């Protein structure tokens, strides 16, 4: 049985709060039917990094939030049931400091009711700072994906979220797909620095051309691998550019921080676009 892929619009990891904060802006049906990726969940609770965690730069934001999350146990007990009741299609983003942690997270999430799929965060902009398993080579991410895939039922998708590095993205996408990823998300925030030199990740409109190039390269080299475009999507045109380049879906992150209704508007606009294309 093939996994049902999300799309065409998803909430990107870490930009939808716990889901509850997005609900007032999600449109008439609230979160019902919305493809939502949670912020990255780790086995143990994390308080997140010191401030300032997010600063504005021309065309975007630099962030080093430090993966604040209540840990898997608490997430399963409180946040997940709420999201499922609200009708969201929940893709849980998982992050671990070892391969074993990723496998553990996947195993326990495979038994949790209402999880539509997993997104594996294997391309964070500052893995060392965030104390995450370091992905330097494509085989690093592929082995994480293989470990996750072994623990998670094949009828539900596992998405591999990669760093938008044009020199490595095709290799990364190929090896993750071979390791069992249902689709690749291209990509995470771009490694960058805060004005004071601390490591962080750049997001927002400034990175759209970078991620778009990566999506185009992956689609050209690996047309059979479903890709999900992520980086700077904020309107129909920026979403359409990814879809036209071969992406099967897009994720919206930073734009939600600027206008929390962005996903609701994009879903409506893309539905209309699909209708017009059919006609």
């Amino acid at each position: 049985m093939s996994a049902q892929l999300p799309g065409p619009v998803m909430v990107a990891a870490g930009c939808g709060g716990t889901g509850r904060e997005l609900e007032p802006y999600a449109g008439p049906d609230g979160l019902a039917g919305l493809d939502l990726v949670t912020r990255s969940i780790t086995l143990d609770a994390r308080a997140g990094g010191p401030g300032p965690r997010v600063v504005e730069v021309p065309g975007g934001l630099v962030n080093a939030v430090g993966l604040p999350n209540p840990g898997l146990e608490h997430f399963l007990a409180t946040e997940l049931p709420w999201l499922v009741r609200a009708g969201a299609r929940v893709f849980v983003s998982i992050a671990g400091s070892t391969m074993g942690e990723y496998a553990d997270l996947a195993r326990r999430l495979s038994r949790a009711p209402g999880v539509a799929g997993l997104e594996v965060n294997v391309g964070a902009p500052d893995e060392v700072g965030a104390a995450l398993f370091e992905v330097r080579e494509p085989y690093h991410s592929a082995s994480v994906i293989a470990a996750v895939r072994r623990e998670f039922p094949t009828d539900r998708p596992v998405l591999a979220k990669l760093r938008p590095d044009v020199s490595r993205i095709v290799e990364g996408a190929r090896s993750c797909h071979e390791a069992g990823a249902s689709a690749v998300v291209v990509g995470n925030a771009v490694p960058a620095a805060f004005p004071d030199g601390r490591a962080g990740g750049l997001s927002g409109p400034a990175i759209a051309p970078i991620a778009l190039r990566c999506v185009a390269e992956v689609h050209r080299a690996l047309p059979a691998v479903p890709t999900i475009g992520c980086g700077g999507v904020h309107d129909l045109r920026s979403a359409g550019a990814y879809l036209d380049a071969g992406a099967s879906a897009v994720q919206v992150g930073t734009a939600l921080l600027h206008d929390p209704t962005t996903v609701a508007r994009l879903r409506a606009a893309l539905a209309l676009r699909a209708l017009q294309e059919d006609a």
Partner: protein
Amino acid sequence: MADERGPVDGSHPSVHVDGEVVATKRVGGYRHLTLTAPGVPERFRAGNFVAVSVAGHVARRALWVHRVRASSAFGPTLDVVVEARGSGTTWLAAQPVGARIAITGPLGRPFALPKVAVSCLLVGEGYAAAPLFPLAERLRERGCAVSLVVSAPDEAHLLSALEARRSARSVTVLTADGSVGQRGTVADHVAGLVERSDADVVYAAGPHAVLRSVAAAAERAGAWSQVAVETPTPCGTGLCHGCPLPVVGEDGVERVVRACAEGPVVRGDRIRWDALPDALGQVL
């Protein structure tokens, strides 16, 4: 004190709307803007803020709501007080009547109101005194005795206390340079003010250092404190976890919460001040 401020979660009925500047007025060092923002004034409670979009910028700018009018020639409106400092506030202060601005609100947990008529001291520094004016009105409606302190570096940055005299039993004016009222800062005067007002509850809004001095004075006097923090909030809506506020929970456990969603109003004795950076990222 009973906490009836409603849920911290997404059932908070905020809206994101296209607002319009319907009046703009320079008052001393500030620019007062009157805005329409359908749905926001109707839902407002004292201590809420709005997040506004600035042309060409990704992060939102948070502004206290100073006043709402249920009806006017333009329908319901809200007032904000802008101090032009950086890129966003300078842009906002320059917006003419008719300019359209995307507004999200009302946001954040408002001030908790006492259930019974008690004595309240309200302390505000600079533009951050703005949310204390609607608070004073609510408290007076509940029969509370309200003492208001407005403080600023100089006269130009003092919010006018004139209109507050209707709601407050006493109004004290402090300026650091002594240009009007008593000379000195909140930290200099707060202990005596808490004592003289015989306050059961102290409310404060301003920079972290001011709030810290107020919370400490309240605690020494055995009063409750409710402080409205101004931690830079990139989105204002709780989505990004970018405004960490270190607190101690009711259960005694140390946590980091979001200033915009679990705050901006929190009990002063719950904040871990030593771990709280000021707006520039320095620890006080």
